[in-house]
C-alpha cells in the first residue's frame, strides 16, 4: 500500500527546511530503506532533514496538522528495523549535532539528538569525564537514537544503560506540543515520564535536546584477556567473578567463530585463534582498588581453566583489545554475505546451559552461530552469518533464531537487552508478555501519541491494543514458538521471596517485604539492594517503589528507578500488569516499570518487584569531621575524586551532638569497597581535615534524621501536566456509561 503524501505538506516541509534538505524522488530514498539490519527494507515516502531545533518543531507541527505519520531516525545504526519509514515521512535528525552546553561542575551536558555518542565523549575528555553508555556503534550512533532505544553497551554492566544517564529531555510530542521531562529528584514525583520516554523507540515523540550525566574517568583501569578451551568454562567463570562480589566495568565473551572473524579483519586484536572462547574483563576504579580486583579475577580465570591471562599494559594495548570486540559484528561480514544479529538476555546463572543449547540448535540446523556478547549481564548476541540468496539456508536461519529466542524466554530471559523491538522482534512480544501487559503498553503509547503517528507499526503488535482488537491481523502474527526446555525453578518460600538467584544479582520479592528483611536475606550472600531511603529499614519494598523514596546514597548506588528491573501491579481497573523482567538489561516493549515508580496509587498497587542487587562492599566505614575544621576545597575534591564515598552529608549541630560530637555542623561520609580502597579513602578524607572514625551504625542515625536539604522538584509545565493526566487516565477505573434520568 502506497500512501501518498499531500502536495501541500511537501510544499510546507520544503519551505521549512529548504529544497536541499528534503528528498522526494524514489532513487534518493533508496539509501534510507534500511537501518543496520538490512534484512528489512522499506522505502520512505519522503525524507526531511531539519537543521535547527526550530525547523524540527515546525516540521513535526506540519506533520501533525496534516495527520501524517512519521519515523525519526538518527544515524541508522539500529539493529531492530526500528527506524524504517515504509511509505511515510522519515524525519532525519542527524543535522542537529550541537553540543549546546557542558557543565563541568555539575557533570552534565546538554546536547541535540544528532550528536554522535563518541563525539560527546571526545569533546568532554579534556574535563576528565566521559559519557558512560558505550554501544558498540558508539563511533556512529547518535544520542537521540540511544535515548530512543535505551542503548546499552559493554560498560553498562557497571555503569548502567542510557536510562541511568539521562537527566532530562525536552521533547516534542507527536501533536506538536513541547515539554521537558525530568528524572525524578524527589519522593512522590508522580509517574516517571522520562523513564517511559527513554526506550520508547521513537513512538512517544522526538527529543529536541537531552541532558545527560557525565561520568568521571576512572583513576585506574585494568583490562584482562583470558582464553578458555570451552565456551561453558568461560561462561561459568563470568558467573564466578560476579559471585565473588566484583562488578567489572565490562565482561565480554567471544567464541571461536567470532575470534576468527575478528582476527581476519583489520581490527585483529591478537586473540588466540585456537581458543574456544575468550573473556575480556575490565575493572576500573580507584588506583587502590583496581589491582586487588584484577588479581582476584585473574585467579578465578585460571581456576576455571583459562590457558593464559594477559593484562593490557597500556592505553594502546587496551584500545586494541577493545577494538576487536567493538567491531566484531562488522568483522562477521567477512564470513558470509549476510548476517542475522540477535539480541537476547538470560539470567547470568543460565548462561552456560543456554550456550550449550544454542550450539545444539546451530548444529541441528547446519549453521555456524557466532557468539559475541555481554557475558557480565547475560546479554547474548548469537549471530548467524549466511547467504540470503540461498532460500533453504535462510529458512534454517529463521527456524534456528526462533528456537533460540524461545530458549532464552524459557530460561527467564527477554527478547532484547539493548537493540529494541522495532520490526524485528515484534512477533516475539506475545510470547513474552501477557495480553494485559501488551494492552497496557498500548495505553501508555496512546497517552503520548493518541493518533499513533510516531513510528507506526513498531514495538507492540497492533492487534494487542484492545481497541484495535478484531481488526485483521496483518503481518505481525505471533511467531509459532517451538516447545521450550524446562529450567529449574526454585522452591517458593514463605519469607516473601518469590525468587532469588544470588549469582544473577537479582531478587523478586513480595511488595510487603521490608528493607530490613530484604537485607537479612541478601546479606547471607554478601549482597544488598541499596535502596536505603531516608528514614529506616522498616519501610516495605512496595512503599519505597510506590513513592519513589529517595536516600543519601542514590547518586552513588542508584535510585529506586535504577535498582528495579521489573514489577507486577494491579491497576485501578483490576488488571494485572507484569512489567519488565528478571534480567539486568531489558528493552523489550515500553517501560511500564519506571512509569509506576513514584506514581503513588494513581497507577494501581505494586504487588511484587524484581530488584537489582549489588555486591555489598566488603569493608564499610563512616567518618566525620567538623564542618568548621574542613578545608572546603579539599572536601569538594574528595567528593568528586576517585575515592568518592557511597554517601556524604553535612549534618546539623543537633545530629552531631546525638552522635557524640560537639554541637556544631559536621561533614559525615560513608565509604565502602575492598580493603585497599577503603584504606585509600580514609587517607584521602584525612586530607580534608582532622577526621573521626565512627561505627557504621552512626550512618543509620544520619539516615533517620535526614534529609537535611529538601530536594527541589524541577518546574513542571502545562503540557507535562496534561500528559501525566492522560497517562493516569489510561489506567483509571472503568467507568460505566452515565445514565440519564428524567
Amino acid at each position, binding site marked *: 500500500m502506497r500512501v501518498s503524501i499531500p502536495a501541500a505538506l511537501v510544499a510546507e516541509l520544503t519551505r521549512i527546511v529548504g529544497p536541499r*534538505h528534503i*528528498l522526494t*524522488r*524514489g*532513487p*534518493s530514498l*533508496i*539509501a*534510507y*530503506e*534500511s*537501518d*543496520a*539490519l*538490512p534484512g528489512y527494507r522499506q522505502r520512505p515516502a519522503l525524507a526531511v*532533514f531539519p537543521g535547527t531545533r526550530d525547523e524540527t518543531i515546525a516540521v513535526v507541527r506540519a506533520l501533525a496538522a496534516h495527520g501524517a505519520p512519521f519515523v525519526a531516525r538518527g*544515524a*541508522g*545504526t539500529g539493529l531492530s528495523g526500528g527506524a524504517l519509514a515504509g511509505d511515510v515521512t522519515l524525519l*532525519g535528525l*542527524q*543535522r542537529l*549535532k550541537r553540543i549546546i552546553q557542558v557543565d563541568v561542575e555539575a557533570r552534565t551536558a546538554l546536547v541535540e539528538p*544528532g550528536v*554522535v555518542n*563518541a*563525539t560527546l565523549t571526545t569533546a568532554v575528555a579534556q574535563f576528565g569525564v566521559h559519557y558512560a553508555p558505550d554501544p558498540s*556503534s558508539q*563511533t*556512529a*550512533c547518535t544520542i537521540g537514537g540511544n535515548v530512543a532505544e535505551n542503548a546499552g553497551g559493554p560498560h553498562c554492566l557497571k555503569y548502567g544503560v542510557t536510562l541511568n544517564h539521562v537527566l532530562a529531555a525536552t521533547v516534542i510530542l507527536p501533536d506538536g506540543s513541547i515539554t521537558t521531562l525530568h528524572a525524578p529528584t524527589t519522593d512522590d514525583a508522580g509517574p516517571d515520564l522520562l523513564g517511559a520516554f527513554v526506550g520508547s523507540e521513537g513512538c512517544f515523540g522526538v527529543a529536541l535536546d537531552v541532558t545527560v550525566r557525565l561520568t568521571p574517568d576512572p583513576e585506574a583501569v585494568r583490562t584482562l584477556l583470558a582464553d578458555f578451551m570451552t565456551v561453558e568454562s568461560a561462561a561459568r567463570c563470568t558467573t564466578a567473578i560476579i559471585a565473588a562480589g566484583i562488578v567489572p566495568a565490562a565482561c565480554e565473551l567471544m567464541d571461536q567463530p567470532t575470534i576468527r572473524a575478528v582476527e581476519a*579483519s*583489520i*581490527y585483529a586484536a591478537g586473540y588466540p585463534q585456537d581458543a574456544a572462547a575468550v573473556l575480556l574483563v575490565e575493572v576500573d576504579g580507584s588506583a587502590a582498588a583496581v589491582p586487588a580486583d584484577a588479581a582476584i579475577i585473574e585467579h578465578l580465570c585460571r581456576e576455571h581453566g583459562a590457558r593464559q591471562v594477559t593484562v593490557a599494559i597500556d592505553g594502546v594495548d587496551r584500545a586494541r583489545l577493545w577494538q576487536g570486540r567493538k*567491531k*566484531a*559484528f*562488522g*568483522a*562477521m*561480514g*567477512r564470513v558470509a*554475505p549476510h*548476517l542475522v544479529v540477535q539480541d537476547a538476555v538470560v539470567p547470568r546463572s543460565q548462561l552456560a546451559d543456554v550456550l550449550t543449547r544454542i550450539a545444539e540448535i546451530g548444529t541441528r540446523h547446519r549453521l555456524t552461530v557466532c557468539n559475541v556478547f555481554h557475558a557480565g549481564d547475560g546479554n547474548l548476541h548469537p549471530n548467524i552469518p549466511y547467504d540470503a540468496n540461498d532460500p533453504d539456508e535462510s529458512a534454517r536461519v529463521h527456524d534456528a533464531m526462533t528456537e533460540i529466542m524461545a530458549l532464552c524466554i524459557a530460561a527467564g530471559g527477554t527478547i532484547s537487552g539493548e537493540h529494541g523491538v522495532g520490526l524485528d522482534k515484534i512477533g516475539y512480544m506475545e510470547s513474552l508478555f501477557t495480553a494485559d501487559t501488551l494492552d497496557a503498553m498500548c495505553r501508555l503509547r496512546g497517552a503520548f501519541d493518541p493518533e499513533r503517528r510516531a513510528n507506526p507499526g513498531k514495538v507492540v503488535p497492533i492487534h494487542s491494543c484492545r481497541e484495535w482488537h478484531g481488526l485483521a491481523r496483518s503481518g505481525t502474527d505471533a511467531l509459532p514458538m517451538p516447545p521450550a526446555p524446562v529450567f529449574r525453578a526454585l522452591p517458593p518460600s514463605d519469607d516473601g521471596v518469590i525468587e532469588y538467584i544470588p549469582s544473577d544479582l537479582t531478587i523478586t520479592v513480595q511488595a510487603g517485604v521490608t528493607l530490613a528483611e530484604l537485607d537479612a536475606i541478601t546479606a547471607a550472600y554478601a549482597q544488598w539492594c541499596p535502596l536505603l531511603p531516608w528514614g529506616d529499614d522498616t519501610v516495605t519494598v512496595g512503599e519505597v517503589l510506590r513513592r519513589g523514596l529517595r536516600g543519601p546514597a542514590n547518586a552513588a548506588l542508584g535510585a529506586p528507578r535504577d535498582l528495579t528491573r521489573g514489577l507486577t501491579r494491579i491497576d485501578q481497573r483490576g488488571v494485572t500488569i507484569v512489567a519488565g523482567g528478571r534480567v539486568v538489561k531489558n528493552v523489550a516493549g515500553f517501560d511500564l516499570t519506571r512509569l509506576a515508580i513514584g506514581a503513588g496509587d494513581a497507577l494501581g498497587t505494586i504487588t511484587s518487584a524484581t530488584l537489582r542487587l549489588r555486591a555489598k562492599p566488603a569493608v564499610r566505614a563512616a567518618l566525620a569531621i567538623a564542618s568548621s575544621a574542613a578545608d572546603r576545597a579539599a572536601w569538594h575534591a574528595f567528593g568528586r575524586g576517585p575515592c568518592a564515598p557511597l554517601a556524604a552529608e553535612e549534618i546539623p549541630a543537633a545530629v552531631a551532638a546525638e552522635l557524640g560530637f560537639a554541637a556544631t555542623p559536621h561533614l559525615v561520609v560513608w565509604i565502602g569497597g575492598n580493603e585497599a580502597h577503603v584504606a585509600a579513602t580514609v587517607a584521602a578524607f584525612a586530607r580534608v581535615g582532622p577526621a573521626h572514625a565512627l561505627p557504621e551504625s552512626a550512618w543509620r542515625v544520619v539516615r533517620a534524621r535526614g534529609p537535611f536539604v529538601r530536594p527541589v522538584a524541577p518546574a513542571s509545565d502545562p503540557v507535562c501536566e496534561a500528559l501525566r493526566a492522560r497517562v493516569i487516565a489510561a489506567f483509571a477505573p472503568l467507568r460505566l456509561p452515565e445514565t440519564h434520568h428524567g
Partner: protein
Amino acid sequence: MAEPLGAHTPLARAAAGLDSCVHCGFCLPACPTYLAVADENASPRGRLVLMRAALDGEVRLDDPDITAALDTCLGCRACETACPSGVPYGQLLEATRETQRAVRPIPRVGRLVLATFARPSLLRVVLAAARLVRVTGVARVLARLPGALGTPFALLASTVRERARPYRPAVPAGEDRRATVACLTGCVMEGLFTPVNRATERVLMVNGYALRRAPAQQCCGALHIHAGDADTARRLARTNIAAFEASGAELIAVNSAGCGAMLKEYGHVLHDDPAWADRAAAFAGRVRDVSELLAAAGPRPSRGETRRVTYDAPCHLQHAQRVVTPPLAVLGAIGGAALVPLAGSDQCCGSAGIYNLLEPETADAVLAPKLDAIAATGAEVVVTGNPGCLMQIGGGLVRAGATTVARHPIELLDAGYAREY
C-alpha cells in the same frame, strides 16, 4: 525500473565487494562528505546501497540522484579504515565510475584535465603556462576572486616556494648504501613543486639510497581511474611499469601520496590482463612512499629551525596505503620542529585529485573544518605529503590570509640537512 547490469560490466565483476557490507554505518562519521552534508546519499553506506540498487536494476546509473551521490565522493577512502568488514570501497567506486562511463560521459572540465595529464607534451605546456602565471604574481591577486573562480588561482599561488639552498650529498657507497631507488617525478610535483622533487632526491641520498633514473615514466593514471577512465589508466600503468623496470632500481620512491597509492594498486588495475598481471603485481610490491624509505633508514637527524609544526595525513597515505607512522618518524628527525597534534588529521581536506575543480562547493565545505583545526594549533607550518593536499590546504590558507604555510615534510628535512652541507 532499469535492467540489471550485465555480468561483464566492471561493477558486476566487483560485486563480491558489495556483499561484505553489513550495513553497520560505522563509515558514516569517517566520511567527509557525510559530515558536511548529513545525507546518507553522500555517505559510503548510502553509495554502496545505490551501487547495489544499480546492479540489481532498481535504478539507472545515470539517474540524477545516483550521479550526484557518486560524483560527490572524494574517493578519500577514510571509510575503508573505519570499515570492520573490509569493504573494498575504492575499488567499488572505480568500478562504478567505469561502468557509468557507458551511459554518461565524464564532465567537460574533467575530460579536459584528464586528456592533458595523459599527454606529456601538452601537460608540459600547460604547467609552464601555470608557472608563468605564478611568477608574475597574478595568481595571488586572482585568488581573491569569489567562489569557484578564485579556486584554481589560490591553488597555484600556494605552490610558490623560496629558493632552496642546494647542496650536494655524497653518493652513498659501501656499508652506508641502502637500496637503489628510482623516483616517480609525477606531473604536478615536477611541474609545480620542482624544488620538492630535487629535495626528495637529496634527502634520499643523505639517507643512503642510490638513485636511478626512469625517464620514460608518465602520469600514474590515478586521476583517470578515479574518474572512470580505466582504459587510459591501464595504458599509463603499462608505460610506467616498463619505464621503472628499465631503470634497474630495486624500489620506486614516491613523494605524492595519491600517485603512490595508485602505483601500489597497479596489481589490481591490471589483474585481468594476463600479459601484465604478474609484472604489475611485482612492480606494486616495490613501491614505497618516501616517508617509508626514510623511516626505514632512521632517518638521519637534521637541524632545522625552531618552529611549531602540525601534520595532516593525506588520505591516500593514511587510508589507501595505510602508511601512518613513517611521516611522523620523518618529522621527528627534524630538530627544532615542535609537533602539535592536529584535530581530525585523518579527515580529508577536500582536494581529492581534481574534485576541488569539479565540485568546488563541497570541497570548500570539507576544507572549512580543516582550516579551523589548523588555526587552532597555532602552527606556523602544516605538513602533508601530497601535492593535491598541499594546494588545497595551501590555497585555503592563502585565501584566508593566514600566515601558516603548507609544506611537504621532505622540504623541512631537506632545509635542515642544507644547513649542515
